[in-house]
Each structure stands twice: as C-alpha cells, then as structure tokens.
C-alpha cells in the first residue's frame, strides 16, 4: 500500500503544484521518488510530529495541500492535539497518511501497533477516516482525499498486501463497496483485513452460507444506507477490523444498527480485544492470538450461524 500511495501521490503532484509531502523522518526507500521529483514541495521535518502537523496547518493556511506521512501512532496519537486544533478545528486541507495500520509492525511491539487510531480520529469533527483494503483502494483513496476539501486520515497497511479487487471498483468516500452480494449473512470489513475477509467469505460460500461482503473503506462518514440494507436483507452482520474492539468500524456499525435497526439482526464485532498484546510476534501470529486468522473467523461465524439457524 505504501508503494500505491507514493505512486499515486506523485501522479497527483504532477498535475497539482500545491500538493506537498511531509514526513517525520520515516518512509526510507518509499518517499524518495516524490522527494527527487518535487524537492520544493517535500519536507522531512525530522522526528518531530507535533511540529509536523503545525507546519502542515501553516501550509494549508497558505493554500497548499500537505500530505503528512508517518507510522500510524506517530501521525495520529503523538500529535493528536495538533490534529484536533490546528487541523480539524480550523477545518484545514491537511491529509494524514498513516502507514502500518493495525498490527503491520507486529514484532515491533505496542509502541508501533495502531489499535486506537480509528477511534480517536473518528471522534474529531470535520475529519474523514478512510482505511483502504488493498492497493487498488489505496490508489483510489489517495485520489479521492486529494480532491476532497478538508482533513482526511488515510490508514494504510504496509507492503505487499494482496490485491482484492480484480478491477478498480467505483470508489467514493463514504460509500461502501459490495464485493459479494449474498443474502444469508453480511461481513463488513475495513482496512488491511479485507483480504482475510474475502477468504472467509469464499469459504463460507463454499459451506453454503451465502455471504455478502462489503468493503467499508470509509469509517467516517459511515455508509448508513448500506449497513441498514444489509441488516434488512441478511440475518447476521459481522464487522472485521484490525483495530481495538472499542471505537472503530464495529462501533460505527453498532451505532447505526442500534439507532436505526428495523428488525433484530444478529451482530458481532471481530476486532482486537481491549488489551495490549503481551505476546511477541508477527502480524499473522498476533492476528491468530486475537482470533482474527481466516480459519478462526470462518469457524466463529459458521458456528454462530449454525446455532442460530
């Protein structure tokens, strides 16, 4: 996703000379193509994220369109007050690009895990929160965020994420993408678990559980209509995300269902439990520990669905 991001940003910057790229000294071997092509619009501010967001706000107040890049915790949490006041309160055209969403930096430990970022950015007025599910969605999300006025947070994975969409889907911020149209149950996934969610849906379909699969790349504003349609037309809704069970996609969907649900629908959130990992390991390993491997999710859903038949 990093590569899709930087390639797309370079294309955009070619056409729009107001686009800048800022980094807090991260993105080695990724950002150079922008830095080399547009040196006057590139800034490595050093390891100083609070300052970076302030500078981005100053650039935006001067008519520029800064994309601000770092690892998720450092571009959202370290500088949260600057994001809140400098960017969101002033409703400035600043784009936050977080790399390594969820457990991408698994072995690096809790400092580099990003499991609360969607919750806190979603709470900010004026903020748009987008979690692309594959490189195709990343490309589309970067384009869409550049043409959307106002703050956007794009939560990326890291590298070598599989392509989920065989061809570029129609992508609009705030509109989920229906990948499969089954009518038994619905899986709503976001971000870098989309590929896993697709494998789960494939397996459930093999087991004759007709599974609707929605890529909810935009967590804010959430696509209420698509959620309510799924709740009407299928008998269970599952959310899948590599984020804390508190405050992310699952919470956003729960809010919609609780306030608007027209009938009782079985609803479960599959997410990271409300705890710091005590275990050391890779993204795959930690997903397994959290019950979020493809096999675990598949068994969990199919068991629930069988019990409730």
């Amino acid at each position, binding site marked *: 996703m990093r590569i899709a991001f930087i390639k797309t940003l370079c294309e955009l910057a070619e056409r729009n000379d107001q686009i800048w790229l800022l980094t807090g000294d991260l993105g080695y071997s990724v950002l150079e193509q922008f830095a080399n092509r547009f040196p006057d619009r590139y800034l490595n501010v050093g390891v*100083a994220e609070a300052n970076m967001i*302030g500078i981005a*706000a100053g650039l935006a107040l*001067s008519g520029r369109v800064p994309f601000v890049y770092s690892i998720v915790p450092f571009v959202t949490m370290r500088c949260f007050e600057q994001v809140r006041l400098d960017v969101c309160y002033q409703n400035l055209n600043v784009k936050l690009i977080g790399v390594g969403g969820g457990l991408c930096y698994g072995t690096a430990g809790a400092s580099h895990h990003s499991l609360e970022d969607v919750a806190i950015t979603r709470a900010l007025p004026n903020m748009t929160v987008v979690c692309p599910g594959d490189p195709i969605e990343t490309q589309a999300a970067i384009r869409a965020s550049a043409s959307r006025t106002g703050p956007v947070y794009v939560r990326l994975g890291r590298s070598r994420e599989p392509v989920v969409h065989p061809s570029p889907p129609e992508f609009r911020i705030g509109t989920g993408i229906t990948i499969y149209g089954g009518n038994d149950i619905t899986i709503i996934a976001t971000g870098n678990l989309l590929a896993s969610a697709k494998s789960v849906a494939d397996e459930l379909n093999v087991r004759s559980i007709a599974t609707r699969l929605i890529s909810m790349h935009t967590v804010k504003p959430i696509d209420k209509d698509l959620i309510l349609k799924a709740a009407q037309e299928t008998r269970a809704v599952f959310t899948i995300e590599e984020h804390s069970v508190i405050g992310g996609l699952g919470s956003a969907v729960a809010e919609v269902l609780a306030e608007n649900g027209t009938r009782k629908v079985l609803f479960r959130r599959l997410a990271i439990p409300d705890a710091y990992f005590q275990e050391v390991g890779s993204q795959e390993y930690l997903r397994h520990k959290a019950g979020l491997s493809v096999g675990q999710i598949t068994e969990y859903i199919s068991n629930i669905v069988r019990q409730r038949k």
Partner: protein
Amino acid sequence: MPKLAENYEKLPREIRRRIVRMVFRSQTSHIGSALSVVDILTVLYFKILSIDPKNPQAEDRDRFILSKGHSCAALYATLALRGFFSEEILESYCQDDGRLPGHATMHCVPGVEVSTGSLGHGLAIGSGMAIAAKRANQKYRVFALLSDGECDEGSVWEAAMFAGHHKLDNLTAVIDRNRIQAFGSTDQVLDLEPLADKWTAFGWAVRKIDGHDYVQIEETLADVPFEPKKPSAIIAQTIKGKGVSFMENKLAWHYKSPNAEQLAQALAELGDIE
C-alpha cells in the same frame, strides 16, 4: 493609518481601556496576560504589519499569530481599533451568543489568522506559513507572539529548530517575557534562563528589548531579519497587568476579573479620554 508617533500615548491606552471593560463585562480570566502585550500589538498593527483591514485575506499580507491565545482580548481590541471590525463586537467578548471566544479563533472576526489557545502551537504554524512563502518566493512575513511560560512546551523548540534549520528569516517570534506563569514566577516553576542563549543555540538571531518602550519595539521590529538567513527572536521584557497599577506583576490577575470599583479605578488610571 494614524501616524504612530503621535498616537503612542493614546492607542495603547484605548486598547487597554477596552480590554478592562471586556474582561469586566465577561468576568473572565487572563486580563494580566492581555495587558502585557498591548504595546507590542500596537506597534505591530499600526506600524509594522503590511495588512489591509478592507482586504484581510490579501495574498501578500503579513501574517500575525497570537500563539498565547489567552491574550486574545488584546488582539480583538487592537483589530477593532485598526478597523477590521466594528467596535460593538467587542461587547460580545465571552458573552452567550457572542462572537468572540476567550481564546483567539479564526473566522470569528476578520483579521484573526489562526486559532490558538493551547500553548505551543503557533510557532509551528507560523513556520509552515513561512516556508510556504520561501519556497514560492512570496514576500510576506510571519510574526508569532509567544508567552514566556509557553516556552515550557517542547513543541516550541521543535518549531524553533525547524525554523533555524530552514533559515526562515521571514519569521519572527516575539516572546512576552513577563516572568509570571500560572503558578508563579517562571524562575520558580521551570527556569527558562538563559532564554536568549537557547534561541541563539537553535539558530535564531536574538534581541532583548523593553516590551513597553514603543520606540524600541518599533525600531526592533522594523529591523527584522536581524541577520540574513536566520529567523529573528525578540525577547520583550514586559510587565504582566501593565497599565493598571494594582494588577501589575500580580499573579492573581492571571485569574481575577475586576469588580465595578476596580473597573472604575483602572479606567481612571488609563485616562478617560474617548
């Protein structure tokens, strides 16, 4: 624009009178901090800044950021007197359904460039504006007014390092050195000294002035950048509560607001000459 020399006595007094009334009416805090910066704001807005109240968003205008946003009563009063908006609006300061909140807020009235209130934000934003101008060969300048207590914030020094590194000589920081912060003297809470040396070490050209001496303020601000390829820092020695005898250098007036009697005394001291 009024000629400043003949207004040096009058303008700051009028601004201070408005501040005292605004804070009395709203019974809010920070009157000492607002009175502290009046002379600096007067010189900036009536002499130094290239601005046009009729075209407050002009592309080439100089930018001013009140990083110590809690002094905004002084900024609002200065902007009103400079013609950015009607003086009547000052009466709505911190009132229900009013237009002027208790920390500087952009868009609430013309002329406020940046929303502040949490300390340590303004210099980074100013650095962003300054590097935008540098890279595009634009000629506008950026001025940020910080409190001395604000320099406790690490983000001030992140921005200071950045501006020094990038040689932003179109950026000036004025530090309102009144030596009093929320719990007492800056020496006791968290010693800032040697403050000038710190800015120098971060790559800035530094001057110390009397922050209530209009001539010094004007001569110094007119002389930026002090050195080519360096941002300029002005450490302005000031008195918290300046202009009202019983508020001067008193920590309590970081919090208190005047009662009717105190208002009358303050206005008497500031000369009822409207």
